[in-house]
């Protein structure tokens, strides 16, 4: 194992976040068992107060996870000098089988946590807390997810063996390699572009319908859920090539570097935010019939949908711009 401050920090943060959620879950279970909104008893009063603690704990935990996600990628980037064959974060994540799962789980925690927070925010606006059982039930699902992410990450760091010769973007994403990464990058730019803009059109259409008619929120969320992985695949198999101006460089991380104008942040930040909010719209909309939530759903979901759409617009615009301004021409040779 490698003992560096960043790794210590990541392991520590995951452990503490899991502990905080565990604490929140203990309170949540108590609420689930004894909640009675009509009662004026002191127990009910205490339970109501514990909802503030739960909200605060989860908000803080998710915020920490977001920063930790960044640190995780930075750290992988910073460690590439320590592994033979690693040219960037991709190679470091490849050192053992836990690397990619750790990253994906961290992303899953981000989305699950964000949706939970949006739901919590909604419920707090209903004077009878109509979703309280649902949301605390979901919290009990979030906890194992966070714990799993922490364990997988710990495994990844414990099994970081500097003697392993790893494979980086060049070989990992090469057509004759095997595995998910190879398959992702072997998607031809043509297919990737079609899927990218196709799913983008679906997102815009369903989002616009939701904003105008207040219908099909689930479709909007679903299309965002589809558009997100497609966008990631398209970045790896196509957009990145244009950014690097190199027909075989498929790295999803190097675009975060200063050498490429930090364009990665302009792609990922809007994409992640927009997807989280669109999922939130899908989670909020079904509750618009609850009397005490009606106005809150209307206001919140509308705002989230608007911001999500703006985020998607930004993402697709930046991706298109990256392709257009590039000196790499693949249209002739590839399709």
């Amino acid at each position, binding site marked *: 194992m490698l003992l560096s401050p960043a790794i210590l920090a990541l392991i520590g943060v995951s452990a503490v976040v899991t502990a905080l959620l565990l604490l929140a879950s203990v309170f949540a279970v108590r609420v689930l068992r004894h909640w009675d909104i*009509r009662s*004026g008893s*002191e127990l009910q009063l205490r339970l109501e107060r514990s909802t503030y603690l739960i909200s605060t704990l989860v908000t803080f935990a998710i915020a920490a996870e977001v920063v930790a996600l960044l640190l995780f990628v930075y750290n992988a980037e910073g460690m590439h000098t320590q592994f033979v064959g690693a040219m960037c974060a991709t190679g470091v994540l490849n050192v053992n089988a836990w690397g990619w799962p750790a990253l994906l789980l961290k992303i899953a925690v981000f989305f699950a946590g964000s949706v939970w927070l949006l739901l919590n925010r909604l419920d707090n606006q209903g*004077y009878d807390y109509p979703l309280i059982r649902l949301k605390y039930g979901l919290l009990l699902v979030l906890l194992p997810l966070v714990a799993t992410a922490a364990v997988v990450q710990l495994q990844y760091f414990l099994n970081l063996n500097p003697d392993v010769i790893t494979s980086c973007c060049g070989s990992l994403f090469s057509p004759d390699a095997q595995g998910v990464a190879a398959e992702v990058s072997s998607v031809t730019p043509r297919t990737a572009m079609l899927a990218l803009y196709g799913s983008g059109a679906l997102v815009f259409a369903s989002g616009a319908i939701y904003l105008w008619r207040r219908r099909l929120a689930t479709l909007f969320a679903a299309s965002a859920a589809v558009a997100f992985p497609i966008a990631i695949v398209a970045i790896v198999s196509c957009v990145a090539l244009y950014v690097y101006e190199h027909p075989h460089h498929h790295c999803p991380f190097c675009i975060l570097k200063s050498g490429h104008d930090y364009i990665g942040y302009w792609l990922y930040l809007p994409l992640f935010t927009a997807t989280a909010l669109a999922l939130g719209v899908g989670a909020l909309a079904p509750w618009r019939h609850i009397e005490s939530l009606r106005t809150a759903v209307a206001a919140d979901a509308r705002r989230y949908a608007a911001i999500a759409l703006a985020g998607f617009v930004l993402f697709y615009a930046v991706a298109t711009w990256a392709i257009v301004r590039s000196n790499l021409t693949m249209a002739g040779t590839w399709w």
Partner: protein
Amino acid sequence: MIRLNDISKAFNQGQPNEFWAVRDVTLDIEDNRITVLRGPSGSGKTTLLSMIGCLSRPTSGRILLGERNLSGLPERFLTQIRRETFGFIFQRFNLIAGLTVLDNVMLPAYPLAPDHGALVQRATALLEQFGMGSKVASKVEWLSGGEAQRTAICRALLNDPQILIADEPTANLDTRLSQEFMTIIGELKAAGRTLILTSHDPVVSDAPCVDRVITLRDGQVQAD
């Protein structure tokens, strides 16, 4: 109109020292009236008042504010109603030391986040109306009792509440200041507000502007 229906409040419920401070109180408090709660020490005046003012919740019973049922509302929403509907004047004034008179008066509006300029203007106008114009920038710990009282009144009025609640407002004032206070109360009623006070002080309960005196004993309403 505030309607109390069989209101009871228990402390330390379920424990050996369980104590019912208010028991089965049913009351109607009319708009634009001055109502005084009276009774011996420990009779539950403050407890009842804090339930009326949404500072705490009854253990059982219903409170209706106009059409709206307040019992069963979580603290979060009680607070929202409270800051729109009620203004509070406390016995010990409860000003925050170290802040200026103006800052103290503006505090209740912070969570509502109005425009800052407008807020300063509103607070200053209120303070001038109560003859505190020259003290706007002084720290509250240097105020005299009467001045502190008037600052507290301004603070209670800042969010323009319909109902003003005062718990033992004259306990720290001499007779002259108490009478002055009751004059202000009368003026507020004339301006259309509802006032609910508790007091031992005959200056309060015997004041001509008072419409109704309710006597409590052992947590129960005695008679009008």
